[in-house]
C-alpha cells in the first residue's frame, strides 16, 4: 500500500516474481554448466582443473550456506518474527519448529536453493493469489540478493578467470567451456542487475530512479569487473603458481581494511569475521561500500590501487608471455583492459555526479541531508503504522550506497 509518498515498501509485483524466477534459472544454469564441465575435465584426465572448479563451487556454497544460516538465527531473534511466520503458508523454512530440518538442509548445501524456492512460492502466493505477506516476500528477496552477490563473487568470478586461463593455456576451447563462460558471465550480470534493483527498492518514490540509473550501474560494473577477471586470468597464464600468493596477499590486506573500517553487519563476532573475509574476497574483484559516511576517499584509494594492480599484472604478463602464440591478441588486450577500467571509472563518476540521489530529505524532520545511516532507515519506516519488517542488512547496504558525499562536518548534531 503506497499510502505515503515517503515510500513504504512497494508491493510485491509481477516484476519481483519475474526476477525471482529468472534468478533461480540463471543460478541453476550456472551450477549445471559447472558440474558438466567438471565431469568433462575428469573424463579427460585434467584432474587439477577438475579440483579447482569443484573447489570454487564448494567454498562458495559453504560460505553462502553459513551466511544464510547466520541470518536465520538473527531473524529468529527479531521480535516481530512471529508475525511473518504466522502467515499460513509463508515459509518452508525458518519457523522455530523446523530449526533442525533447516540446519540439516543447510549442511547439505541446500539452504540457498531453499530460500529461492521459498521466495518463488511466497511470491507466487502473494502476487497471483493476492495473499498477505507482501512485506515478507520483499524481505526474502532482499536477502536473496545479498546471498546472490556473495555467491557470484565467490564462485562465478573466480570460475570465469579459471575458464579464461584454461582457454589461454590450451589455445583452444571446447564448446562446454564456452557455455560455462557464458553461464558465469550471465550470472554476474544478473547479480548486478538484481542487486541494484534491491537497492533501489529502498528509495522513496520521490527520488525514484529510472532505468537509466540501472543501466549506468550495470555498465560501470561491467567495465570494472571484466578487466579484473581478464587480468587475473592473464597473469595466471604466465605465472600459475604466483596467482595464489597474489590473491592471498591482497585478500589479507583487504580483510585488514575491512577490520579497520569497523564494519558492523552481522550480529555475532563470528558472523562479522565471516563477513569481513567475504568482503575481502569481493574487493579482489570489485569495490563495495561497507562503511557508512563519506566513502569517496576510500573509493578513490581502492580504484587507484586496483588500477596499479592491473598495471602490474598486465606488465608481468606482457613481459613473460610467449610472443608467438599470443601474437593475435596481445596488443589488443594490452590497450583494451586498462582503457576499459578507466572508462568504467568515468562512467561511475558520471553517475555519481548526475544520477545519484544525493539528497535525501527525511519527511518532516531535519534539514540536514540525511547522512546518518539511521536517518536513511528511518526514512523508510517513517509513516507506516503497521509493523513493517525491514531487511536491515539490505538497508545498511542501501545507506552505504546512497549516503551523501557532503562535507564531513555536517554530520554533527543537527
Amino acid at each position, binding site marked *: 500500500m503506497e499510502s505515503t509518498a515517503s515510500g513504504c515498501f512497494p508491493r510485491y509485483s509481477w516484476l519481483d516474481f519475474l526476477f525471482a524466477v529468472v534468478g533461480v534459472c540463471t543460478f541453476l544454469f550456472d551450477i549445471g554448466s559447472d558440474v558438466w564441465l567438471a565431469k568433462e575435465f575428469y573424463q579427460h584426465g585434467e584432474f587439477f582443473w577438475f579440483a579447482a572448479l569443484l573447489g570454487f563451487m564448494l567454498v562458495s556454497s559453504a560460505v553462502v550456506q553459513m551466511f544464510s544460516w547466520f541470518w536465520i538465527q538473527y531473524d529468529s531473534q*527479531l*521480535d*516481530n518474527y512471529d508475525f511473518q511466520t504466522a502467515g499460513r503458508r509463508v515459509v518452508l523454512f525458518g519457523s522455530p519448529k523446523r530449526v533442525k530440518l533447516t540446519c540439516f538442509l543447510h549442511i547439505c548445501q541446500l539452504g540457498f536453493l531453499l530460500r529461492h524456492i521459498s521466495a518463488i512460492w511466497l511470491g507466487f502466493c502473494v502476487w497471483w493469489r493476492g495473499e498477505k505477506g507482501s512485506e515478507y516476500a520483499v524481505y526474502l528477496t532482499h536477502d536473496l540478493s545479498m546471498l546472490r552477490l556473495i555467491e557470484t563473487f565467490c564462485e562465478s568470478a573466480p570460475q570465469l578467470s579459471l575458464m579464461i586461463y584454461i582457454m589461454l593455456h590450451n589455445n583452444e576451447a571446447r564448446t562446454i567451456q564456452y557455455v560455462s563462460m557464458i553461464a558465469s558471465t550471465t550470472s554476474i550480470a544478473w547479480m548486478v542487475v538484481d542487486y541494484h534493483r534491491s537497492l533501489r527498492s529502498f528509495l522513496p518514490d520521490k527520488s525514484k530512479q529510472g532505468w537509466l540509473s540501472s543501466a549506468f550501474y550495470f555498465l560501470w560494473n561491467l567495465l570494472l569487473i571484466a578487466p579484473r577477471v581478464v587480468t587475473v586470468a592473464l*597473469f595466471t597464464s604466465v*605465472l600459475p603458481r*604466483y596467482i595464489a*600468493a*597474489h590473491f592471498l*596477499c*591482497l585478500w589479507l*590486506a583487504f580483510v*585488514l*581494511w575491512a577490520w*579497520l*573500517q*569497523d564494519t*558492523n553487519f552481522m*550480529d555475532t563476532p563470528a558472523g562479522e569475521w565471516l563477513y569481513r573475509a567475504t568482503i575481502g574476497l569481493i574487493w579482489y574483484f570489485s569495490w563495495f561500500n561497507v562503511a*557508512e559516511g563519506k566513502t569517496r*576517499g*576510500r573509493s578513490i*584509494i581502492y580504484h587507484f*590501487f586496483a588500477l*596499479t*594492480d592491473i598495471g*602490474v*599484472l598486465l*606488465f*608481468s604478463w606482457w*613481459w*613473460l608471455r*610467449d*610472443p*608467438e*602464440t599470443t601474437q593475435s591478441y596481445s596488443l589488443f588486450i594490452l590497450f583494451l583492459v586498462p582503457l576499459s577500467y578507466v572508462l568504467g571509472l568515468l562512467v561511475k563518476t558520471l553517475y555519481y555526479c548526475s544520477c545519484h540521489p544525493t539528497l535525501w530529505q527525511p519527511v518532516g*524532520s531535519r534539514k540536514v541531508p540525511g547522512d*546518518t*545511516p*539511521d536517518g536513511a*532507515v*528511518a526514512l523508510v*519506516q*517513517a509513516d507506516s503504522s503497521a*509493523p513493517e*519488517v*525491514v531487511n*536491515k542488512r539490505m538497508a*545498511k547496504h542501501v545507506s552505504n550506497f546512497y549516503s551523501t558525499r557532503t562535507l*564531513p562536518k555536517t*554530520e*554533527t*548534531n543537527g
Partner: protein
Amino acid sequence: MRSCAKMLAVVVLGNVMLQYVSSQNAGFVKSPMSETKLTGDTFELYCDVVGNPTPEIQWWYAEVNRADSFKQLWDGARKRRVSINTAYGTNGVSVLGITRLTLEDSGTYECRASNDPRRNDLRQNPALTWIRAQATISVLQKPKINASDQEILPPKKPQEDNPPITLQCNLTNSPNTHRESFWMKNGEEIPNTRKGLKNTELILSKPRADDAGEYMCVYTFDMAPNANASIEVKAAPEITGHKRSENKKEGENALLYCKSVGYPHPIWTWRKKVSQGSYIDVDNSTGRFFITNKDNYSELNIINLDISTDPGEYICNATNIIGYKESMSILRVRSHLAPLWPFLGVLAEIIILVVIIVVYEKRKRPDEVPDDDEPAGPVKTNSTNNHKDKNLRQRNTN
C-alpha cells in the same frame, strides 16, 4: 628244452629292444607344400625329418609329367638359382630355394630322407631305403603390366592447384583371366578403387605433397597369385607441423619437432642460427642434444637447458632427391629469477596500500570522535522511531 626257449626269448627280446633303442626309421615332421608361382618370383620348400641316427636329406626334381625321371638338385644348380640349406641336429631340416623362376622350373620336387646305413649302396633299391615327400610347383607366366612412369609433383604455388595427375596400368599378356584390380598407396589399399577392368587408372586431382608416395596397381586372379606394378609419385618435402616457439625455464627439457609430407622420405638436419649465417648444430659436445628421425618426423630434444647458450632460433631442414624445405622454431629460456620482479612489484603495491589505508583510517578516527561522544540515544529519541528500536539494531555501536 627249457633253456632253448629261454634263449630264444632273450634273443627275440633283445632284438626288438635293440632295434627300439639303437635305431629308428626316418619320418617326416614337415613335408614340402605345393605352390603356384609367377615367373620372376622366388619359392622355398621346407623339409623336416626325424630319426635315429639323424637322416640325410636330398632334393630331387622331375619335370612335369615325367615322374619317372628324377634328377637330383644341388646347391648352386641352374646357374646358381638353386640354394639348398641343410642342418643336421636332433632333426634334419632342409630348405630348398629357387630364385628368378622360369616356366621350366615347373614340376615335382621331392624331399628324400634316409638313415639306413645301406642307403648309398648301389645294389640297393633306393625306393626301399629312402622315404620321400613330394610337392608340385607350377610356374605361370607373369602378366605384363604396362605402368606409367613415375611422376614428380611440382612445388605448389600459393593460391593455385597443381594440374591433375593420372596413373595408368595396362594388363597385357596375361594367360589367366583376371578377376579385379585395385590400387594401393604405401602398402595400404585405397578404398573405392576396386574395379574389374584390364586397364585401370587412378586420377589425383589437385595433387599436393601429401599425395606423394609409392602407388601400386594390383591385379587379382582366380588361380594365380596377385600381380602388381608400382609407380612412384615424388614430391619435395613440405613441412606441415612444427612448434613455432618453445618457452621453458632453465634446467628443464625442451622439445622441438618438425613433421613433413613428401616422398621419398627426407633426410633431416637441425641447425641453429647464429647472426645471418647458419650454424650446424653439432653442439653435442655438452651431450644434451638428442635428435630422433622417423621417416616424416624429426625431433630435437634438449635436456637441462642452459640460459646462456641454448636460446635462439633452430631450423629443421628436410631434404630429399626432389627438393628441400626448412622451418624455424624459437627457443626461449626463462631464468629462475624472472618471476621475481612481478612478485616484488605486487609486494610493493600491497605494502603501499596497507600503509595508506592504515594512515587513512587512523586519521579519520580523531574526526569522528566528536560524533561518537554524542550519545546515540537522544538523537534517536527525537525521531518517531523510538518504538521501533527493537526492530532495528543500533548500527553505530563501537
